[in-house]
């Protein structure tokens, strides 16, 4: 009986050590799928623009990251990328195709407000309504009559404060060194 207990204990300990030794990387729980969908848009005929911004106007849907992608002009880049607002900037153009990326299923309805800027001026605004199978888009040239008419500053990223501070410090240091050397 005593021998059996010892053997059992030793076997248990060995099993424990084996588990610890071979632990390494292991998955925890099942993988989780999160769905999203994309719609390609074209902006043209409104003159030149250098910033595109979109805002979700419905509560149940959000933009998926990256919210705007696959620009027909590869110099354009995503600027603001938040769940309900996103913007993209690039060299001024008068014709652009790109994708807007939404969370959820493409059978979910969504209302999307849109603006494009040339400098500080809105050159076109629009509201797009997707009912799960079809888009209905109303354009508002120059933004007149549009529900969403943000300032440009509201849809572009401010420079990172830390980077600005570091830049200022660097410039100050260089100026000081220059003064001491000359």
């Amino acid at each position, binding site marked *: 009986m005593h021998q059996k207990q010892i053997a059992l204990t030793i076997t248990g300990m060995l099993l424990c050590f084996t588990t*610890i*030794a*071979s*632990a*390494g*990387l*292991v*998955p*925890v*729980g*099942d*993988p*989780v*799928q*999160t*769905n*999203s*969908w*994309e*719609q*390609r*848009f*074209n*902006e*043209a*005929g*409104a003159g030149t623009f250098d910033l595109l911004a979109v805002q979700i106007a419905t509560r149940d849907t959000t933009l998926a*990251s*990256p919210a705007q*992608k696959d620009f027909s002009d590869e110099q354009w880049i995503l600027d603001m990328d938040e769940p309900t607002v996103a913007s993209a900037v690039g060299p001024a153009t008068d014709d652009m*195709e790109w*994708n807007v*990326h939404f969370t959820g*299923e*493409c059978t979910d309805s969504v209302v999307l407000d*849109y603006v*494009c800027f040339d400098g500080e001026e809105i050159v*076109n605004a*629009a509201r*797009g309504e*997707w009912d799960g199978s079809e*888009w209905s*888009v109303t*354009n508002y*040239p120059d933004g007149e009559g549009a529900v969403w008419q943000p300032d440009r500053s509201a849809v572009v990223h401010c420079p990172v404060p830390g980077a600005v501070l*570091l830049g200022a410090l*660097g410039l100050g240091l*260089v100026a000081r*060194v220059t003064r001491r*050397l000359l």
Partner: protein
Amino acid sequence: MRYATLLAMAVGLILTASTATADLVPVGDPVPGGSWFQQFNETGVGNFDLVAVRMTSAGDTFEHSTHYGFDQAGWALKYENAPMYPTLASATGPAVTSLTWTIKFAGNNNDNPLAFDFVAFYGDTLLESAHCYWPADGTPHYNDWVITAPGSWSPTRAELVPVPGAVVLGAVGIGLISWWKRR
């Protein structure tokens, strides 16, 4: 002849009108997409302060933020080799013996097999290397993962935590100032 002129004018007018009223229009049908994530645990290798993954199957990527949801304080995503869809990503934090966190993949987990390499470091020492394969056959389940160790990937720590551009720029600046001072 008059008919041809009228036709040309009509086409011209239609084209002009189309351009003027173009503005924002959807192009083609919506395209479904997605991403998925899997929680992992690393333990049994002693203290480690860096984990990294490298996608090895062609055409597959991770998705920003590749590493997130750490259960240990101070751990954070350190580096991704592309802003949105990286194929190499690392995370660092204070030395720990066990870490549970989430890795995010682009695409669907039920129809797209993928494979990636994993490493864990303590300082400059490579502690563990593993190869992970996701078969994507049937209903996704954690038991589907095939993880083999040791893997064949043996990077240096410097490859996984590249020196930021600002530091390089700073070093160049300091070098320039010293050179100017000597002159």
